């Protein structure tokens, strides 16, 4: 009888994800179902442990992965069970909205999407769930901050850099130290292409990835996302457009994801590639190096922060928040969680430790790059960001394919964004 009860409870949790406490309350209200001592045991178990669900967008990391280990370590530390469920990044928003009545305890969400989900009323604020965010780096945390409310903390952060192939540069006689701004980079590309190599590859695909890759050049030209048609924005898009038109960058950038762009770079034919910290390990193997993306007049451009936020969706049983917050704090603390994903830790201590150990994706270089990076939803863009981003990547596609001049493309983009935001 008791065994059956256990089994039924477990199945109930597995299938419906209902709160354990809720199920137990339902059972214990039916005295014929079970003897009271068993109920007492279960309730105690629920107070100290229980099963919590976590959705992450890493289906490629299986149960043996370091990420799964990091989760299990936190579960052991808290004396609970964490049920991990991996889905596709692109589907997070859809999955969460359709699961509205049955949300996971923790949902990991790509950081520019946090504002949209928060606006829909799916996520709780740190004030509601009691999450301690004091040790998280401010520039990474602000991606999940809307009107002063914090909707979760990042598991870690990544950002973009300018990888280069020393062999190609040496062959063309280009000194990497000469690359300090847009003009000197373009000059370097011209020299490389004249020497019979290929210039630079990046991703200008018509999705969020395209905007993500464009932002360093955009921000580096002092442009502002609220003014897509400003001269600074046009200058940034002109840079990319000219590269493609002059054959310094391949046509395929229009359809490249960051993954396919990296594959192009790995052919060894390209001098430069704009790509993320998550490829540092492969770059090391291939003997490639990396610098920060330069600004239009020198210095380094602010790159956007990437990486997922651990958010705590709304639950009927608010008592669950306390433990959910502890899980999130555990994964954000130190560097274990971030290292397992190839990210820079969200807290100063963890990041320093990673840099000291020369962790892949979190070397001293990347730790500094992430510290300089800027979240996409910053400047309080919040839910406007996805709308602006969509117009921006559309303009990039139109300009790079020769459909319109950068100026006209951005003018259209701004007009469309204006009409959508009001």
């Amino acid at each position, binding site marked *: 009888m008791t065994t059956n009860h256990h089994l039924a409870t477990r199945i109930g949790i597995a299938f419906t994800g209902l709160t354990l406490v809720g199920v137990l309350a339902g059972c214990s209200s039916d005295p014929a179902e079970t003897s009271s001592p068993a109920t007492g045991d279960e309730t105690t178990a629920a107070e100290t442990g229980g099963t919590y669900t976590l959705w992450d967008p890493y289906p490629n990391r299986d149960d043996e992965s370091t990420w799964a280990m990091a989760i299990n370590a936190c579960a052991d530390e808290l004396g609970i069970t964490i049920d991990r469920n991996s889905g596709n990044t692109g589907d997070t928003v859809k999955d969460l909205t359709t699961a*509205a009545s049955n949300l996971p305890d923790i949902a990991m969400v790509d950081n520019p999407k946090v504002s*949209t989900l928060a606006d829909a009323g799916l996520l709780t604020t740190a004030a509601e769930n009691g999450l301690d965010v004091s040790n998280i780096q401010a520039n990474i945390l602000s991606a999940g901050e809307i009107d002063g409310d914090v909707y979760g903390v990042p598991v870690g952060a990544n950002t973009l850099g300018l990888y280069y192939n020393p062999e190609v540069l040496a062959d063309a006689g280009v000194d990497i130290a000469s690359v300090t701004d847009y003009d000197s980079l373009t000059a370097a590309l011209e020299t490389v292409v004249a020497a019979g190599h290929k210039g630079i590859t990046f991703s200008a695909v018509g999705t969020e990835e395209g905007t993500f890759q464009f932002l360093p050049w955009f921000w580096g030209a002092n442009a502002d996302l609220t003014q897509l048609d400003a001269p600074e924005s046009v200058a940034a898009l002109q840079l990319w457009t000219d590269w493609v038109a002059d054959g310094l960058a391949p046509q*395929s950038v*229009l359809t490249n994801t960051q993954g396919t762009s990296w594959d192009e770079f790995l052919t060894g034919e390209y001098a430069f590639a704009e790509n993320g910290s998550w490829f540092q390990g492969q770059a090391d193997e291939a003997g490639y190096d990396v610098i920060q993306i330069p600004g239009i007049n020198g210095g380094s451009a602010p790159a956007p922060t990437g990486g997922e936020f651990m958010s705590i969706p709304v639950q009927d049983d608010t008592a669950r928040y306390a433990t959910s917050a502890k899980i999130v704090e555990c994964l954000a603390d130190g560097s274990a969680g971030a290292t397992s994903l190839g990210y820079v830790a969200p807290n100063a201590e963890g990041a320093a430790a990673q840099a000291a150990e020369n962790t892949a994706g979190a070397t001293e270089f990347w730790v500094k790059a992430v510290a300089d990076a800027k979240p996409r939803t910053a400047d309080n863009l919040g839910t406007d960001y996805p709308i602006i981003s969509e117009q921006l990547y559309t303009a990039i596609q139109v300009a790079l394919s020769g459909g319109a001049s950068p100026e006209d493309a951005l003018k259209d983009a701004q007009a469309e964004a204006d009409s959508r935001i009001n």
Partner: protein
Amino acid sequence: MKTSMTRTQRAAVGQGVKEGAAQAAPSGTRQSARRATIRKQATAWAFLTPIVIYLVLFYAYPLYTNLDLSFRDYTLRSFISGEAEWAGFENYRQVLTDNTFGTALWNTFVFTGASLLFQYAIGLALAVFFYRKFPLSSTLRALFLVPWLLPLLVSASTWAWMLNSESGIVNAALSWIGLDPIYWLTSPDWSLTAVLITNIWIGIPFNLVLLYAGLQAIPTELYEASSIDGAGRWRTFWSITFPLLRPVSAITVLLGLVYTLKVFDIIWVMTRGGPGDSSATLAIWSYRLGFGGGSPQLSPAAAVANILILIAFAFGLFYVRAQRKALNQ
């Protein structure tokens, strides 16, 4: 299902009772005849129930939901609250005045028209070719079906690789014969052509199979008679094959039309409707509005989908009318 079983059984039992009663008392025949009619009707309805339930569940209800969605202002918030403001025709107004609408409609028209024309013409030519049996003809015909058997995702990805501007085999071939590379997927002038070529290639087997079957149904005596009359190949085709193939042709083209209007996967995998809107059809645009961007516009997306359904419906009616006319003749 359960209901229909019981009703059928009851009807069967009733039948036995009726026969027995008829033998015993001939006077009750009229009454039991009426009862039999009712039973018969009930049985008919019982058999209809599954299909009616199926149609309501999987056609009427989604269609109704889509209509409802397009007349409201549905946001992510609506999923939580379950409430969405009534917007009337506002979504349709927004969609119809959008710059993309004209482009998408034109692209849909060109994409569908050109696809049907080439698929049908090539399919028919191949069907006539294979009508004459020759060694290995059935093997060859089977090979022509391969595009149809492949998952669309596979076909589209393969074509995207072949048409890749930098490293695609098509551009490599062009350079061997001394031509400039064509930026198939990344030029606004060529992207629609690229997806069109792929879609034609995928649709040929469908046309081939249906038209080939249609050819088998044409009586061979007609061909024998025409050859005795001294008709040439060309004359035979236009005077016998083509006219007699008309009903099959009509259904082939109509099915092709409905299928092509809603083609999504090929274009999405190859170009995502880009660069810009250059290869965006109504189906692509609807998806882009609903799920493509960072902030879903579900209601306008539903409005576009409904416009697409209306277009398909109009052509469906046109077909039914043409069919009826043909029957009356």
